[in-house]
Each structure stands twice: as C-alpha cells, then as structure tokens.
C-alpha cells in the first residue's frame, strides 16, 4: 500500500516537473525574441536621423547614411516581385487547377526542394549565368536571384489559397456554361485574392531580408544608383559590411539599419496576421 502511494506521488512529481519544463521552454523562446528586438530598438534608435535615412555611406567619422541602400533594396525587391509574383502565382494556379497528376506532384516536389535550397546557392547560380556573361555585378542580377527565391514560395502559398475556394463555386460557374479558364480567372482567382496577397506580402518580407544571394550578384555601391545594370547597394549587405567592419560608428549604423529592416519585416508579418486572424 505504501509502495503504491510512493509510485503515485512519483508520477505526480514527474508530471509537475515536466509540464513546468515545457512552459519554461516557451517562456525562454519568447524572451529570446523580446531580447533580440529590444536590443535592436535600443541600439538602433539613437542613430536614426533624417540624414542617416537619405545620405550615402561616407568615410568613417563624416557621418553618412543608408539612403542608397534603401533605394537599392526597394528596386531589387520590386524587380523580384515583378518577375516572381506573376510566375509564382501562375505556377500555383496550375498546381491547384491542373496539378492533380504525376506532373503536378513532380513540380510540387521540385518547388519544395527549391524552397529548401540555401539562398547562397541561388546567388552562385546567378553569378554563373548573369554576372559572368555581363562581366560585372548588377542590380539586375540581385533582383533575379531574389525572384528565383520568391517563385516557389509564392507558387505553394497560391496553390494552398486556391484549394480553399469551395468547389461549389467552380461547379456553379461551369454549369452556367463558362469555359474553364473563365471559371479559374474570373471566379476562383478573385475568391482567393486576399489569401494570395497575404502570401505575396510574406514572400516580399522574406526576400527583403535576404543577404547571401546579393553578396556577389548585386555586390554593393557607395552611391545612389538608379540603373539595374550597375552594382547596387542593399540594406542587408550594408548591415553585413557595417557589422563586420572595425569601426564603432559603423556598428551603430548597422543597428540603425537593422531597426529599419526588422521594423519593416515585422510590420508586414503582424499586419498579415491581423488580416487573416479569423481563419486561425
């Protein structure tokens, strides 16, 4: 009888210890997030100024800013979105509407594979097919690398969103005599638009934070550059260069640029979550 009691209390203690441990894990991970964001805000805010946001990098001690990096990041993200969104969405529509066969399964598998490929490898690929033939690094190369990263992500989220559209809508339109492409384009796609748009926003947030594929495709530039055939600066590469350099002034600028970048990415993520909150 006493033995049974000790077994019972042992089980209860194990239960208590283990369930508390899992709660500690959760608290630990959330505090890591808060610590990281806290440091970025604390360190970054002191260097933020109008001059910092509009100026170009200058020799150490003369101030300078990241205006050209902001423009470069925006231009390359824009180019990537202009290519990646239409191709990705079209591929996603194909997978959802016509992809329930071996070919669709193959594309699906390959797309997932491409999502898992480290982004630096995409950078090397673009280096061999764009930078080497052109003879120099360029905003075009950087934008193309980002587009390749974007396509499979957009394709898979688009497919998922279209699959959520009820089949009765398709059947209704087909029964009224609409051809299949009309059904897909005028009925199904509009119904999935908000889902596809949030997926697109998350994909844009993701590529804005990419560094590795830009290192030797877009390279960097100390000046404002509005032409895609020239090397182009980006926020992420600029942060990398500032952070790995020896000067404290530059470290402070790295934190400020990070505040801007992380702020942008987190705002997109939070807005998307707010807009889609009903579904979860």
């Amino acid at each position, binding site marked *: 009888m006493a033995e049974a009691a000790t077994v019972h209390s042992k*089980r209860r203690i194990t239960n208590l210890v283990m369930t508390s441990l*899992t*709660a500690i*894990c*959760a608290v630990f*991970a959330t505090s*890591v*997030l*808060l*610590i*990281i964001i806290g*440091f970025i805000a604390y*360190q970054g805010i002191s260097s933020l100024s109008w001059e910092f946001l509009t100026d170009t990098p200058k020799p150490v001690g003369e101030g300078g800013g990241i205006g050209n990096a902001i423009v470069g990041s925006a231009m390359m993200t824009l180019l990537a979105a202009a290519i990646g969104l239409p*191709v*990705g969405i*079209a*591929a996603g529509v194909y*997978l959802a509407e*016509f992809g329930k066969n071996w070919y*669709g399964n193959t*594309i699906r*598998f*390959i*797309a*997932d594979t*491409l999502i*898992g*490929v*480290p982004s*630096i*490898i*995409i950078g*090397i*690929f673009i280096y*061999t097919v764009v930078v080497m033939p052109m003879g120099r690094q360029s905003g075009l190369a950087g934008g193309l690398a980002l587009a390749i990263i974007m*396509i*499979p992500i957009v*394709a898979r989220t688009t497919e*998922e969103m279209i699959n959520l559209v009820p089949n009765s809508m398709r059947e209704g339109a087909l029964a009224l005599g609409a*051809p*299949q*492409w009309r059904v897909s384009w005028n009925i199904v796609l509009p119904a999935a638009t908000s889902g596809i748009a949030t997926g697109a926003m998350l994909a844009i*947030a993701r590529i804005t*934070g990419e*560094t*590795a594929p830009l*290192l*030797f495709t877009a*390279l960097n530039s100390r000046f404002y550059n509005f032409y895609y055939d020239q090397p182009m600066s980006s926020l*992420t590469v600029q*942060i*990398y260069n500032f*952070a790995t350099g020896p000067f404290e002034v530059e470290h402070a600028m790295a934190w400020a640029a*990070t505040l801007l*970048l*992380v702020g942008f*990415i*987190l705002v997109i*993520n939070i807005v998307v*979550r707010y807009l889609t909150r009903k579904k979860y």
Partner: protein
Amino acid sequence: MAQSSTLGDKVYRTILFAAATSILLIVAAVFYMMVQSSMPTLQRFGIGFLWASEWNPSQELFGALPFIYGTVVSSILALLIAVPISLGIAVFLVEQAPKKIAKPIAFMIELLAAIPSVVYGLWGIFVLAPFIRTYLGPVLQDNLGFLPIFQGRLTGIGMLTGGIILAIMITPIITAVVRDVLEAVPNTQREAALALGATKWETTMIVLGNAASGIAGAVVLGLGRAVGETMAVTMVIGNSPQITASLFEPAYTIASVLAANFADATDELYLSALIEMALVLFLVTVVINGLAKLLIMSVAGRANASKHT
C-alpha cells in the same frame, strides 16, 4: 463560341504550364551550372576533394574536410540545443496551454523565423559573443574544463557561438512542424490514456510516441535549415579552416566559406573548388529536405508537409 472557349482554355493552360515548368527548369539549370562550373576541381581532385583537409588557395591546395567538419559539428550542436526546447514549446502549446495563451506565444515564436539571418549575425557578434566570452565560456571552462571540447582560447567567436545562433534560428521551424504533427494526433488517444488514469505528462509521452516519425521529420527539416544557414554563421563562427575538438575555437562551414570567399576567388581553380562545395551543399540539402518531407507526410498528411518544406 465553343471554338473560342476551347482556344481560351488552351492558351490559359499553356501559360500556367509554362510557369509551373519554369520551377523545374530553374532547379535543373542550377544543378547543371554547378556541375559544369566545378569541372576543373572535379577532374583534378576527384572524390578525394571531400576528405582532403588542407585548404590553402594560394598554393592550390583545396580540401573540403574542414568545411564539412564545421558544417556537421555546428549543425549537430544546433540540434542538441534546439530539439529539446522545440519539443517543449510544441508540447506546451498543443497539450497544455489554454488557447488564449498558446496563440500569442505561437505567433511570437513564428516571428523568430521571420527575422533575417544577417540580423541574427549582428546580434550574435555584439550580444551573444560577448556573453559567451564573459559569462557562459568561463563557467563551462571552470566546471567542465577537463573536456577537450571546452578547452582553448575564449574569444566568443567560434563553433559554440555558431551552434547557439543556429539553434535559435531553427527552433521556430522545428516547433511549427512538431505542433502540426501533434495536432494531427487524434484526440481519442489522449482521452483513452487519461481515462486509464495516466497523468497529463504520461498522456503526452504516448502522444509523442505515436507522432515519432513526424517529429523525426521536423528534426531532419531543422537539420536541413542549419546546414544551409549562411549569414549568421559566417558572422560568428570565426571563419578559420581548421579541425579542432574545442568548441571555443573558430571554425568554418561550407555556406560561410562561400559567403566570405566567393567574391575574392578570381582564379579559375579556386572558383571551381568553391562551386564544387556549393554543389555538395545543394545535394545534401535536397536529400535532407526530401527525407524530412517523407517523414512529416507519414504523420501529418500531405497539406501539412508541404506547408513547411
């Protein structure tokens, strides 16, 4: 009318088909270009490239072993830290916490995955590395200093810092997959266990056991991410091609040697050696991700598996 609609269908379908096929062509082109660009070292060193340990580009000595070693050790380190924590978080979110608490915590952990790699690198250099140098490192050396892995110079920059940064980065990924896997386990299992008098934790162990292959998939997926992670590791691991037992010493990974040295590789053989390592990394991540997908699919079903890979 019927004519034009079938034409419309054909055009529409062809455009979509081309877009879908572009994904296939991109992957094929990536593979082809990397094989072609690494031909000089493939032909000169053959398979021995992978286990040669000398790396000195100025003397045309190219061995990939230090980078493979660094990649493997930093990834294992990351898994050792991240897997128990991720399992704990996922169990807490699915099995224990009330929905009101679970939702915001789950969202915050997802946000960890949205933070760019270079930001983790910055944070690693200026916050984590000094912390390891002044607090964690001395504590480990004082108590466990007899172990070779904790001997050596403490600079804060090295294998351990890389492993910890990787652990933070893969935790949200493993957590998300394990959550889905646990949610896919039917509630009747929990009810049955509780009805037999099992405690909450014993019930959880039964659920975890039945979700084992899905959890294995989550771990393998985390491994794939750790192996390919580039910027953060490049910024904190020290970038030195050496094989040492000490976790405090600088090391190098495949991804980080690509990030740090590719721009300087003007010589054809040097460039070829780097691209051959990129090819190895590409093939390894493809295999790892494929395996992860199969494992997760076996538990959570198709839709969930595709969401994460």
